[in-house]
């Protein structure tokens, strides 16, 4: 999923300051799972902003709504009937969600309330870990299901750097050495020999260098 964190309230208040009516727009998907922009967080932020506005003596119309997904137009059109009541939308969607709503309503300023972080997994309650770079050329079958691009501090594809100490990365002591994890996992499945295989250089053109990537599936189109 896509992870995100809420911007500091001070920063958000500066962004919304020019506007007298604001829709605080949550998203019920990834950012709800990472407790940044779901219905609860959207309600809490809207409450805080309303209270802050009252205390400043600058009452503003600040209302909230949460879409199931901001990044899917079929959900965004639910705003058709209400969005023009507001001078601006403060979105608690990820960067993709903010832009999808902005694209649908070109005449309404869209303000991001979150900093979008990474593709990751929920490791535990309140703990999210980056584990995918979205490189467009997945090699996890070679590395025992552990991505060295996302999880090795040096993003090494050709083996450990030699700086691992007792399974811990020399760059960041909070990070397990990805290559130690790869070797442990391949050893456990008797597949260490997989690292002997020669594979071609990684095709980075699938990730970057051609502008925004697109996926077009005619079989999914109307």
């Amino acid at each position, binding site marked *: 999923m896509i992870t995100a964190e809420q911007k*500091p*309230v*001070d920063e958000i*208040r500066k962004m919304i300051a020019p506007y007298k009516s604001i829709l605080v727009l949550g998203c019920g998907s990834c950012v709800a799972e990472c407790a940044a922009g779901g219905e*609860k967080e959207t*309600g*809490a932020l809207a*409450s*805080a*902003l*309303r*209270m*802050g506005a*009252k*205390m400043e003596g600058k009452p503003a119309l600040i209302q909230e709504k949460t879409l199931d997904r901001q990044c899917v137009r079929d959900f965004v059109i639910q705003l058709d009937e209400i969005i023009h009541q507001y001078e601006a939308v403060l979105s608690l969607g990820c960067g993709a969600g903010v832009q999808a709503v902005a694209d649908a309503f070109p005449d309404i300023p869209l303000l991001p309330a979150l900093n979008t972080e990474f593709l990751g997994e929920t490791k535990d309650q309140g703990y999210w870990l980056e584990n995918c770079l979205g490189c467009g050329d997945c090699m996890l079958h070679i590395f025992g299901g552990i991505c060295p691009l996302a999880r090795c501090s040096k993003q090494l594809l050709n083996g450990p750097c030699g700086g691992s100490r007792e399974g811990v990365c020399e760059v960041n002591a909070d990070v397990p050495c990805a290559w130690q994890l790869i070797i442990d996992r391949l050893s456990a499945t008797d597949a260490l020999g997989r690292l002997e295989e020669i594979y071609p250089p990684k095709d980075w053109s699938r990730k970057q260098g051609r502008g925004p990537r697109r996926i077009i599936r005619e079989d999914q189109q109307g």
Partner: protein
Amino acid sequence: MGKEHFTLALFYCQGTPQSSEHDRQSLEERYGKAIRLFPIPCSGRLEPLHLLRALEEFADAVYLITCPDGTCRYFDGNRRARKRIERTRFIIASIGLEEERVGILVRSKDDRRVLVDLVQEIMDRVEGVAPSPVLNQAVKSAHAHSRK
């Protein structure tokens, strides 16, 4: 600033001794509109959203009474509640509201006090907290009451 229009929102775990519906009604009679009581099955269910809504709509301060550490019937509800109180304090501080408006009371295991005693302690704790600048005092005046 006078405190004649002060309202405390009090959330409490239903595991609190002598916190039946009858006890709640007795407290409401005693304190009038100075207190609004919200029994909840477990303090771990409480979210910052609940506390913020209370502060936004009617409360000058919000407090939570949890079970003693290690006695939560859902194992760690009171531990979670403590973190959410801290989170709420952080949020209100970010808009310039005093952190003291949000509080928690965690009994020790050998603390045998019942709800009415705990309420009195909390009322004493918030004695120095001024009426909230968030609330429209004109509206609050319609619900004027005296703190006891």
